[in-house]
């Protein structure tokens, strides 16, 4: 670790200080004024980029390390400061003759210059530079343990060896990257977002940011990751059980609202597939948090028999623009136009291929028959499910005037299964209900157990079913929706 500069810069106790850089046209413009003030006495010039600038001043002080600029909190150059008894008593930014006259106490300076010119951004607040300075001055506000890698130790291999990875390479969480990530939110890095299962560890925004860096997120994704984490940590979602079950499920994230387009998520062609950074890394960040902070790892608390590839990442956006239906978030109580994330305990994707149906009755029957096959055709009630309706299928419902609510109702009716089809032995399959249930009727889903979203490319009559956990519902896992906040 580099040493924290421990002393206040050796600033003059009294007099004038100017901070400049050659790269700033306004600083160049004021060079003659700086010479004038230096001649009149009591001016010290600190230069941020070129120690010879301004040539008009006898001995400008080299602040290319930017320590003085950082300590003085300079944001704009030139900045002119009056010091008195070791304290700043007045300062001005850019060139403003009246202000410079007031602060310097000399009238008529820079008479040849225009009265006003705005300054330029100071070098010490440039994005990468500011982070370096905060690290050097011990001002990161971060409290996570520093892990110093050995000389010549490969940082990517080091992360694997420490068990942080889901199996794929990750972005090394350096202080600079984590600080940059945290600029994606106004929340305090030490704020606790919730208790991360399975070990119920208080999860801070900082730990979320570190894992988001490793997952490959950009800072502007962080609010979505935070909302996803809050949703997954809501006790109603039962993340512990979703992790610990032998079944296939993991958290599936659906993003709604304007944030989808702001961070360029994919809701269209291949929405559930690879290739979009936001889709891929937001889902991955949640999984890494459960692994690294919560302590939930495969073959430990995660007892999944097979798992599913979505446990690397499972996150997509709904295509709201093309839809005639309410977005999922609106259905779930979030105001229209507000961004939100919904988490659902789901697995895999089962295709619903129907290229022939042109009326909603036929198409909904097609969907219902596929839905009834989740887990096992012999099992009902079975689990919650998410139906991802592709645009060409949604068009069929739209043209017939079917609202999403209508489709929910029709599917629910179509998913009633007579007990005789479910009892043990029916279809030659031992799995099933007791014979005494033969004369009853069972629905494949609990009421509210189905969610419909619209996503996918414009071509292809291929919708998809994301199956759920057999412990869906209030006693197990309920889908949870959280607003995305900055």
């Amino acid at each position: 670790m580099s040493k924290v500069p421990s002393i206040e810069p050796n600033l003059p106790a009294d007099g004038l200080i100017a901070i400049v850089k050659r790269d700033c046209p306004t600083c160049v413009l004021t060079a003659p004024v700086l010479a004038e003030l230096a001649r009149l006495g009591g001016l010290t010039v600190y230069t941020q980029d070129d120690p010879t600038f301004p040539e008009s001043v006898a001995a400008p002080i080299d602040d290319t390390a930017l320590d003085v600029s950082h300590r003085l909190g300079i944001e704009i150059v030139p900045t002119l400061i009056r010091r008195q008894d070791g304290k700043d008593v007045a300062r001005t930014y850019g060139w403003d003759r009246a202000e410079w006259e007031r602060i310097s106490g000399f009238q008529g300076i820079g008479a040849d210059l225009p009265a006003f010119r705005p300054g330029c951004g100071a070098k010490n607040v440039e994005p990468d530079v500011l982070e370096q300075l905060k690290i050097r001055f011990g001002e990161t506000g971060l409290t996570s343990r520093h892990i110093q890698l050995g000389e010549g130790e490969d940082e990517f291999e080091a992360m694997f060896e420490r068990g942080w990875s889901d199996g794929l390479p990750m972005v090394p969480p350096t202080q600079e990257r984590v600080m940059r990530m945290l600029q994606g939110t106004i929340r305090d890095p030490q704020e606790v977002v919730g208790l991360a299962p399975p070990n119920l560890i208080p999860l801070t925004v900082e730990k979320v940011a570190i894992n988001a860096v490793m997952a490959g997120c950009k800072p502007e994704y962080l609010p979505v990751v935070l909302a996803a984490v809050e949703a997954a940590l809501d006790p109603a979602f039962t993340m512990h059980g979703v992790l610990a079950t032998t079944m296939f499920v993991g958290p599936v994230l659906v993003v709604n609202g304007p944030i989808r387009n702001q961070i360029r998520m994919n809701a269209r062609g291949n929405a559930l597939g690879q290739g979009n950074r936001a889709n891929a890394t937001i889902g991955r960040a949640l999984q890494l948090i459960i692994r690294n902070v919560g302590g939930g790892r495969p073959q430990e608390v995660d007892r999944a028999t097979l798992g599913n590839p979505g446990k690397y990442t499972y996150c997509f956006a709904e295509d709201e623009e093309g839809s005639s239906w309410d977005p999922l978030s609106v259905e779930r109580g979030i105001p229209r136009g507000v961004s939100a994330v919904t988490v659902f305990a789901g697995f895999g994707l089962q295709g619903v291929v129907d290229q022939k149906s042109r009326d909603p009755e036929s198409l909904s029957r097609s969907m219902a028959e596929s839905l009834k096959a989740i887990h096992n055709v012999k099992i009902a009630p079975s689990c919650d499910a998410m139906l991802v309706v592709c645009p060409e299928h949604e068009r069929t419902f739209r043209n017939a005037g079917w609202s999403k609510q209508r489709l929910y109702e029709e599917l629910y009716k179509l998913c009633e299964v007579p007990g005789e089809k479910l009892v043990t032995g029916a279809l030659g399959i031992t799995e099933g209900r007791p014979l005494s249930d033969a004369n009853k009727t069972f629905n494949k889903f609990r009421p509210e157990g189905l969610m419909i979203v619209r996503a996918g490319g414009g071509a292809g009559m291929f919708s998809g079913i994301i199956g759920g956990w057999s412990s869906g519902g209030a006693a197990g896992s309920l889908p949870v929706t959280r607003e995305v906040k900055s």
Partner: protein
Amino acid sequence: MTILLDPTSERSPTSRERLGRPDRLEGLTVGLLDISKPRGDVFLDRLDERLTERGITVKRYMKPTVAKPAPLPLTQQIGAEVNVVIEGLAD
């Protein structure tokens, strides 16, 4: 020199030694915990019978749902009332 920030909870879970297995159950109270999985009761009912036949005191408990960890009051109650607890997966 690369410095990384620790992405973990920075805690190492305490591993506690399990209590030694008792040599005999006679004179002890045995708890049977049904975790609310289907048919778990089939297994536990039979154990109950066998233990009771031997004159061993049996107490029965049940988690409200298999999907969530046992509520704290339940684990405290079990801890306070029995010497040994048996729980079984089912399906």
